[in-house]
């Protein structure tokens, strides 16, 4: 993306030449690009760890690694995918798109924007370096329940704690920046209810981040003092309570789930109207549903903890509150389908990803509803049914929307078109293999296979083998994805300013490759109205 620089930039300096451009940049497009490449690198690393997991699970028996290393793989896979891949990818999309969508020249706090990105490689580097430390990387699962993560954890845990603090700083600064941009830098003629849904979902996500990340910071700080300074927050022998750790963790962890999916809802709400050539159905109910989901996400955390020995009244409350989330989520799915209904649809690659998102995310939603039924959760809890559930919502949900967004906005980012035929092959390859990978895990879980085990009894052998084969195929699909993106950047045919016939939105009014500085003068009311996807 470094080639073809300032050709459309008549009034301002283009980007600086050389490597320092990326170190010193305060440009939202450059920073968005940095975030996306960082997230992609982390996705590949996290994916490589997952390949290790699936290789060990290909057959019963311990073939490749000792159980301690297996636990390091599952832990680091989860941490890297959540904090290194999905979250930074959405911040990258937000950076690139939000200023263009609200008609702003840049983010509100550009220097902080630079800082919040440049913390990430260091945090990621510290996290990854734990693999090479004595005693190995954290091996207590991405949920790091005490006391396994305190008294019984390897020394590298303190580095993990530091890395989590850094990632938290970065996320909070990113969130503040997005709130400030949306509320203060929005084109003066754009009302809140004119904003496209990606902007709305990110605005709401930012409030979730600001609420949730400090709680995570609190949890790891208490871990740090328990480990090193003789406190006993989570140690019963000192008057503490290990279950309190889980309450604190999930008070962060459940909003976190929605931090990773609300922007995905936003992305899909752009792509479906474009390729259905029809306005988004139920725009305002989409906004209200997003806000309701965000609110509910703060009051359902203990549904992750039905087996910790909660009183029955607590279990009943958390079960009811959890089931309630199905209502606004259902509204969203119905609205997407109503948008498609009686449209004039075509199925370019972004639409394929978006339609399969609706289908596969909803399957993850169904298993989520099942998990919310507290008595049934007794049998599902900590089995592969849960693994299948959260991979359906996070891989075929969050990650799917990120890939959809990449193909949808790649022409705007690069000024070039990707290879549509190859991209379709890649889509079918990924969508088939991901289901071979994760669908059998529902069966494994229901038949009683616990998660986070390096070896299993013989009745689980066949589905594990199918799942592993699907996993290798899915992993390999990212080689093709990498090729398609790089091929687009290097050799893509020139794109038009509006490469999708039905696309609306202020970003499509810019040059084919969006100018380095855009919207130096804010868009007019007429332009905002005519580029609205929902009226």
């Amino acid at each position, binding site marked *: 993306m470094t080639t073809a620089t300032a050709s459309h930039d008549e009034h301002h300096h283009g980007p600086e030449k050389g490597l320092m451009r990326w170190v010193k940049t305060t440009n939202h497009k450059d920073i968005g690009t940095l975030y996306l490449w960082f997230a992609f690198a982390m996705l590949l690393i996290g994916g490589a760890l997952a390949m290790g997991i699936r290789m060990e699970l290909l057959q019963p028996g311990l073939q490749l690694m000792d159980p301690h290393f297996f636990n390091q793989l599952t832990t680091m896979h989860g941490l890297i995918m959540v904090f290194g891949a999905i979250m930074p990818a959405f911040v990258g999309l937000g950076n690139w798109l939000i200023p263009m969508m609200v008609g702003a020249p840049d983010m509100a706090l550009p220097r902080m924007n630079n800082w919040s990105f440049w913390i990430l490689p260091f945090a990621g580097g510290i996290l990854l370096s734990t693999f090479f430390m004595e005693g190995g990387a954290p091996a207590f699962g991405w949920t790091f329940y005490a006391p396994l993560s305190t008294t*019984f954890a390897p020394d590298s845990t303190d580095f993990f704690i530091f890395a989590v603090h850094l990632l938290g700083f970065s996320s909070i600064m990113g969130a503040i920046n997005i709130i400030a941009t949306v509320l203060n830098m929005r084109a003066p003629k754009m009302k809140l209810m004119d904003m496209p849904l990606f902007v709305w979902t990110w605005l709401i996500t930012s409030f979730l981040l600001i609420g949730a990340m400090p709680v995570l910071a609190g949890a790891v700080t208490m871990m740090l003092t328990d480990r090193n300074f003789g406190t006993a927050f989570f140690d019963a022998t000192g008057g503490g309570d290990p279950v309190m750790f889980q309450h604190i963790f999930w008070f962060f962890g459940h909003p976190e789930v929605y931090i990773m999916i609300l922007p995905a809802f936003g992305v899909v709400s752009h792509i479906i109207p474009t390729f259905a050539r029809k306005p988004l159905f139920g725009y305002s109910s989409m906004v209200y549903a997003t806000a309701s989901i965000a609110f509910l996400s703060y009051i359902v955390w203990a549904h992750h903890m039905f087996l910790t020995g909660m009183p029955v009244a607590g279990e009943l409350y958390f079960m009811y509150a959890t089931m309630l989330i199905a209502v606004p989520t259902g509204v969203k799915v119905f609205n997407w389908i109503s948008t498609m209904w009686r449209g004039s649809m075509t199925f370019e690659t972004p639409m394929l990803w978006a339609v399969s998102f609706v289908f596969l995310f909803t399957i993850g939603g169904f298993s989520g509803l099942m998990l919310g*039924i507290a008595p049934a959760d007794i049998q599902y809890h900590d089995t592969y049914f849960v693994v299948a559930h959260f991979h359906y919502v996070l891989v075929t949900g969050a990650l799917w929307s990120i890939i959809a967004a990449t193909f949808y906005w790649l022409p705007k980012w690069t000024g070039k078109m990707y290879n549509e035929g190859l991209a379709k092959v890649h889509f079918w390859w990924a969508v088939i293999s991901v289901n071979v990978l994760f669908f059998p895990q529902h069966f494994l879980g229901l038949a009683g296979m616990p998660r*986070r085990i390096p070896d299993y009894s*013989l009745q689980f052998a066949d589905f594990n083998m199918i799942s592993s084969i699907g996993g290798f195929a899915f992993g390999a699909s990212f080689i093709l994805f990498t090729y398609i993106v790089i091929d687009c950047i290097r050799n893509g045919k020139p794109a038009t300013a509006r490469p999708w016939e039905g696309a609306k939105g202020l970003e499509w009014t810019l040059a084919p490759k969006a100018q380095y500085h855009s919207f130096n003068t804010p868009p007019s009311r007429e332009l905002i109205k005519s580029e609205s996807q929902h009226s």
Partner: protein
Amino acid sequence: MLDNSEKCSMIALNFLISLAFFANDCFYLGGYMSKLSSVIASSIALISTAVFSEYGLNMTEGVTSISRDIYSLHMMVFWVCVVIAVIVFGAMFYSVFVHRKSKGAVAAQFHESTKAEILWTLIPVVILVAMAIPASKTLIDLEDTSKAEMTIKITGHQWKWQYDYPEEGISFISNLAKTSKNSLKTDNKPQHYLLEVDKRVVLPVDTSIRFLITSNDVIHNWWIPAFGVKQDANPGFINDAWAKVDKIGTYRGQCAELCGKDHGFMPIVVDVVSKEDYAKWVAAEQANAAAAIASATKTWSKTELMTKGKSVYEANCAGCHKVDGSGIPPIFPAMKNSPIANGSAAEHIKIVLHGKAGMPAFKMLGDADLASVITYERNAFGNTGSVVQPSDVKSAR
């Protein structure tokens, strides 16, 4: 049950095949793609039928009233989801096939309908309330342990289970069976690989049993799918659960909460027997316990201690310190040339009894077991420590 798993398998198959046909039919990608997708569809179908005939796909009904209630809740919610899926995805795929530009569809421009939106907010609410009622009943029932006729206490340790029958005065440790341990890296797996223990829990049939569940180190989770019992074992706190098993048999489960290195290797096996057989088992266990107490007071020969010590070591210590005493430094120190095993016996006994940092306490083992394993550690692997007698351990407690 067979019916349900057949239905499940049909759904899974249809799902996978429809994905492939979706590829095949609706988007023209050239001949090679359609060939590829039908090959994938048929090969998945082949693998799947072979698998489905042998292996479980679905939750089992189990052998307690709770597990049956859970099973019927599970199936109810599952079918509700299937019906919603058929309607919602049906509409979506109808639209995908019919409302496409290539078929001349012209886009309508409607973008809201208050009626429809109220309807699809209210209908899910009604469905959810209908699901919440039976779920609440089951939940209240399974949390009520007041009608128990007997109690056993279950303590999780890294990585084994301890069972105490407080009224009968029985206590023992249950480890992963040697047959499984020895075949981790071989192709020749025993029956019930990883689901067999060296000493099983025995419980009477048709009796309400209360399980008191706790832990000695990290959080574990005691799970027997057939009982519908899965409960966290929290260090410092006691949780409870109950079951009344109405069918004699052997039931297997596993630890269901990540508890460290050997989380995958601490199975649970319960023999549910007739009330008469249970009484016989209790009598035999009580006699064994009395014999063990008697043997702890005598003085043992070094050979006796070493022989018993080796088996105790391999069951309890070898997971971390390794069979050959090499350990996994630095987390799990080596026994070979260890300053502790070659140093003061009192210090060695103290560490084994009470633990140290990542090393769990082993005070739940008997005096004779501890004396023999400590003697073994002090004299095997080329070590030259002193011999420890059960009386030494007893006085150190």
